[in-house]
């Protein structure tokens, strides 16, 4: 069930009705749990058992970790991590390992061709973070399975995040779940914002991006550049649009989910970019991988190595393919270079300088991010190399076909970034209050705009494949 579908609208209406009608908190929690089961089952009912197993296993193990002490506590945690990673490896990476072994060692095992359960990368990480937080003493194990299961089965963020922490979500279940006019208004507008980003911007750009990246050798350097810039906007609007919709739906039901994006394309350096892009994943990797590896506490060389390992595994998390790994490696190298650069420059950093240096800094950061997106998007490694070579002017010729909508969309995205940068310091951001007539007109105009300007063909959400 896509958020943009009529079926989901009916489904959500039924869920909201149930929440409004039910009186007791536990009944509402079970109602939401049932909704999550139905939502996930609508994608593929066969994997309900898998996600159900994850919820039961981590719930039980969390209790045991909470009770245990000393070495046993650690062994239980290791067991939890191993089982969760094993699930991920079997369902997501098995064929990747087999084909890699085939290339490296010449072993000829046949591919398992296991179907990828949707959202596995997200709920496995969430389940692991629950047990790790219990181990670290940041969270008390929950005694009610239905409460914990809702943490796993909470449908707005089940299939494509944001990755939520038990310490952020579970305490909200202690407060009464209520649908209020304020939450309905704010959540509805968040959802509408996500819908706008997805249907009006991302889907309009996807046709052109798909065309050029399907066969980059046919197109000129200008077209490949345009397609890459268009993809950088598409993936941002697609993913942040989904996150906004998830956050908006949760808000309508009275839950707060953490923001997943914070204007990443205004970042002046790669470190800042990763503080703004897919915040839930980057913070997860920081807290559960980078810091346990030692972070920046074990010397300069070890710091760079930790960054490289963290980002490489982050790349692998996105997909079972070497070009995702390469994307991660490039990000890790970029972060390491930036860290070294900061340590050299110190107080003369561009962020503290005048605007010319800031422009240069932004240009370098954005260009590097775009080059990395090539490896993320290309259908194969040779295609990625072709794109990069064309972008640096190494391969002449090809059809120059420019994307007309990009000329209209790019300035809008830039303007929205600049406006939102100013707005984010206000409490509720840019929220329209329907009580005012002018705001009501704007709201109606916004809804009509999403309908009139939406693309005819809807592309699948990019992060569903992860």
């Amino acid at each position, binding site marked *: 069930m896509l958020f943009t579908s009529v079926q989901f609208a009916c489904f959500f209406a039924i869920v909201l009705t149930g929440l409004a009608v039910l009186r007791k908190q536990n009944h509402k929690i079970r109602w939401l749990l049932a909704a999550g089961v139905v939502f996930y089952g609508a994608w593929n009912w066969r994997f309900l058992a898998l996600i159900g197993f994850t919820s039961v296993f981590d719930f039980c193990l969390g209790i045991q970790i909470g009770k245990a002490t000393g070495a046993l506590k650690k062994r239980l945690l290791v067991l939890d991590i191993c089982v969760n990673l094993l699930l991920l490896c079997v369902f997501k990476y098995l064929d990747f390992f087999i084909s890699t072994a085939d290339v490296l060692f010449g072993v000829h095992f046949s591919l398992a061709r296991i179907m990828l359960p949707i959202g596995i990368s997200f709920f496995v990480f969430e389940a692991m973070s629950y047990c790790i937080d219990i181990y670290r003493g940041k969270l008390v194990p929950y005694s009610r399975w239905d409460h914990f299961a809702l943490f796993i089965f909470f449908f707005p963020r089940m299939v494509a995040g944001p990755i939520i922490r038990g310490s952020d979500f579970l305490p909200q279940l202690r407060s009464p779940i209520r649908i209020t006019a304020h939450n309905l208004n704010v959540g509805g507008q968040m959802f509408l914002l996500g819908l706008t980003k997805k249907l009006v911007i991302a889907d309009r750009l996807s046709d052109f991006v798909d065309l050029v990246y399907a066969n980059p050798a046919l197109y000129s350097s200008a077209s490949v550049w345009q397609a890459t810039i268009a993809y950088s906007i598409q993936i941002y609007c697609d993913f942040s649009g989904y996150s906004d919709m998830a956050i908006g739906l949760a808000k309508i039901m009275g839950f707060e989910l953490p923001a997943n994006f914070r204007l990443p394309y205004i970042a002046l350096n790669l470190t800042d970019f990763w503080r703004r892009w897919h915040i839930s994943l980057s913070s997860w990797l920081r807290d559960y991988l980078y810091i346990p590896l030692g972070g920046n506490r074990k010397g300069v060389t070890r710091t760079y190595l930790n960054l490289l390992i963290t980002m490489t595994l982050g790349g692998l998390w996105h997909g079972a393919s070497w070009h995702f790994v390469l994307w991660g490696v490039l990000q890790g190298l970029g972060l390491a270079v930036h860290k070294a650069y900061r340590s050299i420059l110190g107080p003369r950093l561009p962020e503290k300088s005048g605007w010319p240096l800031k422009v240069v800094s932004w240009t370098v950061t954005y260009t590097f991010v775009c080059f990395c997106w090539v490896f993320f998007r290309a259908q194969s490694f040779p295609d990625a190399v072709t794109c990069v070579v064309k972008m640096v002017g190494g391969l002449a010729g090809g*059809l120059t*076909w420019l994307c*007309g909508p990009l000329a209209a969309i790019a300035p809008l995205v830039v303007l929205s970034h600049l406006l939102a940068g100013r707005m984010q310091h206000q409490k509720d951001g840019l929220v329209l209050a329907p009580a005012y007539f002018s705001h*009501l*007109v704007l709201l109606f105009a916004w809804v*009509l705009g999403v309908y*009139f300007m939406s693309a005819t063909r809807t592309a699948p959400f990019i992060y569903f494949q992860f």
Partner: protein
Amino acid sequence: MPYLRFVVKVCSAFVISLACWECLLRLIAEQPLPYHHDPKLGWMPVPLSRCMDAREGYAHFSFNELGFRDDPVGVKAPGEFRVLCLGDSYVEGGGMGPAQTYPRRLQCLLRGRPGVPRLVRVLNAARAGTTVAFSVGLSDAYKSLFQPDLVIIMVRDGWGDLLDPVQEVHYAATGAGFKVKTDWHWEHMSKAQRLAVRMHLRDLAVVHYGLRHLIDIREASQRASRAAGKSDASTRLAAIDWTVAELAHRYPHLVLVHMPYTAGTHDGLAPVSPDELRLADACKGCGVPLVRMRGEIERDAAAGGMPPFGFANTLPWEGHPNAHGHDLVARALARMLTAPDVLPGWTLLSARDGRSAASHAAAGMVGSRGPSARCPRGKVNPTMLLTDKRLNKGHRAAYSDSGRLLCRTACKGRL
């Protein structure tokens, strides 16, 4: 009372936002075209109306006194040689100005060429959303309106649409073949629909654009499956034969142009279909000259030409032909009409001005005919192919059924 105030507030806000979008859509997306019912031609653009469409490219449309996207037709001048171009939106020229459409380009290419009538005029009578069944069923109306000396009809694959009853003019299969049925939409409209038309509700951009957007999202695949479901392959192929024979009979001086579909991969044309081959056979059998644009497009693409389909706001090889595509069609037709060695043994002649055969020959305008036993109607089209063999023997040609003088010269004086 508070509820009433709330309802009035919400409705007013909605209407104001609709009004804002009406203005914005008229600026950036579309100015709807007003339509009316013409008793002879059916659902047509209102004469002398204007509109804008930015779905593909960005183009302003203005329609002449007859409701076609062309300059005013007016009365036919003495000595004027009229070429009438029929077809659908491919010929009407969406996404570009009228000067870039192939009829206008053809007129520019023909005028001033040695041997071409000085007063050659190429008219664009294409109608978006129609099929070649309109050219068959409304032939009398077109001939009386335009008095053409030559008719050029662009056809495409998708012959199943000819049997689609949604079209105002469509075929009905009979035992012997087909018959043309005319089913004016206006006569089937309910009173409410007629009132909506008279009140120009569909002329509002928010209504027109909004409804069409919904149709685009939902009906594209449904329409294809509906049309395909209505005709099987044998019926379709039979419809092709019948159509060509009917066109040859109804338009004594006829040229067909076949425009192939593009492949869905945005990098070229769809493969040759059985329909295309059948059309070529039918034209050969009836002696109707056929310009197959497939060869032209493929040669141009191999030479590094821009894709002939696609606009700034669409993708290459998608949608309607662009200015380059129209230019290719115009050039192909101009070559065919003015250079007999491109299409062996055939060139075009106009003899309406009553000049003698000798003067026609001196002017270098020739036409010739030959027999064909394969045309279903059993008649011979006056503008037909001759083989090189007959040309080389120096044959004098015959006269047309209508008494038009058709003669041919030797190599000198060719167009």
